[in-house]
């Protein structure tokens, strides 16, 4: 089975997108972003380990995975969700936003960083329009 380091993981969802058997899933709600790992579906292919940009996923030698209750096979990692400053929709985790900010080295200001992709597009378009036409 795999082990996810809760400190390193930022909840970006790269592992979820690559997982062939869909053993890793992500659920975004108002407050939390939950990364779920269901061992019952895992095929131990280590695609997530190779993909993780944060190197947060480790392989282990644990293989005696039988359980009486199916819920014992489910592991969850809970992150805080950030809401878009413009439309108020929850979009990614707070750790992910901080990581992006860190990697961009301050190239992105907070007012854009905390905005969801749709609103960001609108904001940028507006900015350009303002620059060109001079009208708000």
């Amino acid at each position, binding site marked *: 089975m795999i082990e996810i380091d809760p400190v390193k993981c930022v909840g970006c969802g790269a592992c979820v*997108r*690559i*997982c*062939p*058997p869909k053993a890793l899933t992500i659920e975004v709600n108002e407050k939390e972003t939950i990364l779920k790992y269901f061992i019952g579906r895992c*095929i*131990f*292919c*280590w*695609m997530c380990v*190779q993909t993780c940009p944060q190197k947060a996923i480790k392989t282990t030698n644990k293989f005696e995975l039988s359980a009486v209750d199916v819920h014992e096979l489910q592991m969850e990692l809970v992150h805080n969700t950030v809401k878009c400053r413009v439309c108020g929709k929850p979009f990614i985790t707070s750790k992910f936003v901080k990581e992006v900010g860190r990697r961009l080295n301050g190239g992105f200001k907070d007012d854009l960083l905390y905005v969801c992709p749709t609103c960001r597009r609108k904001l940028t378009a507006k900015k350009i329009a303002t620059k060109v036409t001079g009208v708000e």
Partner: protein
Amino acid sequence: MVSDIIETLASVARGSRSKSILTKVGEVCGDKLLKVERVSPSTIKVLIKADCLHEVAEVLSAERDVYFRTMAASDERPAENLFKLYYVFGIDSEGTNIVVEVPTDGEREVPSISDVVKACDWYELEAHDLMGVKFSGRFLKRLVLPDDWPEEIHPLRKDITTEEIKKLYQPQVVKRAVELGVEEIVKIPIGPYHPALHEPEYFELYVRGEKVVDARYVGFMVHRGIEKLAESMKYDQVPFLAERICGICGFVHSVSYTQAVEEALNIEVPEKTQYIRTIILELERIHSHLLWIGVALHLLGYDTGFMHAWRIREKVMVLSELLTGSRKTYGINLVGGVRKDINKEKIEKTKQTLKQVLNEYKEFVDVATSVPQVRRRLSGTGVLPGGEARAYSLVGPTARGSGLSRDVRKDYTYGAYHFVSFSIPTYSEGDNLARTLVRIDEVYESINIIEQLLDTIPSSSEIKVDSWEPQPMKLGLGNVEAPRGEVIHVVITGKYGPYRWRVRAPTYQNLQAVPTMLRGVDLADAPITIASIDPCFSCTDRAIKINIKTGKVEFIPLEVLSRGGVR
């Protein structure tokens, strides 16, 4: 206009054989031939109108070195408002594929070619079931879908999603439970299983005295809808799904899939990748043949042989674990490369193990094949003449046991097979013994191939292309000689994953000939005859979910199956 096309035909041809065959095709079609193009070095695509399909099939099936490989139906209504059928014919002597593309609007009937191309029977039924294509001039019945599936729903069409299919069809367990008035029902599916192969199958044998007069096969009990599932997945997720088509020879499917995508998108794979894939493929063949030899001997009542075969096989399994990390479903294949390298240390270890395996195998096979009971029960039973084998377009050891030296590794070479020399064991008797001996000899060849490859494997560490760009609507074919025969995948690429993925496992082709083999054998020899094609039912069904209906279980005559068992 027509002369133009005939000229193009000659220019796209690969060699003299394909030239003469294509010219004949051009002549019978006339102006119904719309377009000819070379889609890859070994594949020529011919677009024709449905009206002349039957004539084309007649021309192609009359050639001795041409055989029918696969047919894929694809729903291309989103792009062109048409359904398309791709018939793949192979010219053995040249290694060229001729893809006959037939567009249809889904309403008009396409002429059936199963009267001239016997092997096409199931393909047409499947296209009718899953895609809703209508064929004229033949009897159409359900093949893949369960009997109570709604008439107008065709699951592989693009306008229905996997989620909708799940909602639509719930196995009738609940309804049955209500009928019986029980609160909770436990499903105990009994049969249909082969007495030794532990896979779902159902053969109805018609017996006079001790002799089998006729046989009927009912299959597709485990259609899982893998092709539909893959259409919702990304390119690099599909190899892992493909590997799970078969529990014994899964790697062949992942290689076949990746090769098809690579051909469609023109991806050059590093040489070392080819070497690694080929080594693992051959390793898989050794383990699969050892497994089969064991099971065959068990069916003949020679259990000592069974145990020894599996003892030797275990070494191969440990070796697979060393090279790939897993005993089965290796999971090392991706489009454009492999994930695990083979280093010097592993090469040495592999060579050592293979030497041991070879010695033990030789000793074991010499004893096993000289046991008089084994020989007498194998020789002269389940005879399949070469002509029948050709007519059914059979593949793999089944064809080679009937004197057809058809082997994809040589005819349509792929991977690193062109770097090694090996022979193709062929026997012409066509009985169970011939098919057994083909497999026994092939293990020696495989060990030989792996040793040659290990000696010449490139030392570079480049095993994967860095990146590649998907392009939509490109056609690619990928073929691999699996332990059971040729596997061929047709991939039509999409934006993020395959748009259409057609899998054709060897048993799909070979199973249609089993009733012929069964005619005239003693009842006691029926199980070994069925097993002699090394059937892989789940591969054929490609697809457990839908089909176990409690209502039906009681009709399956258990005794029919047990009678066929080992006594």
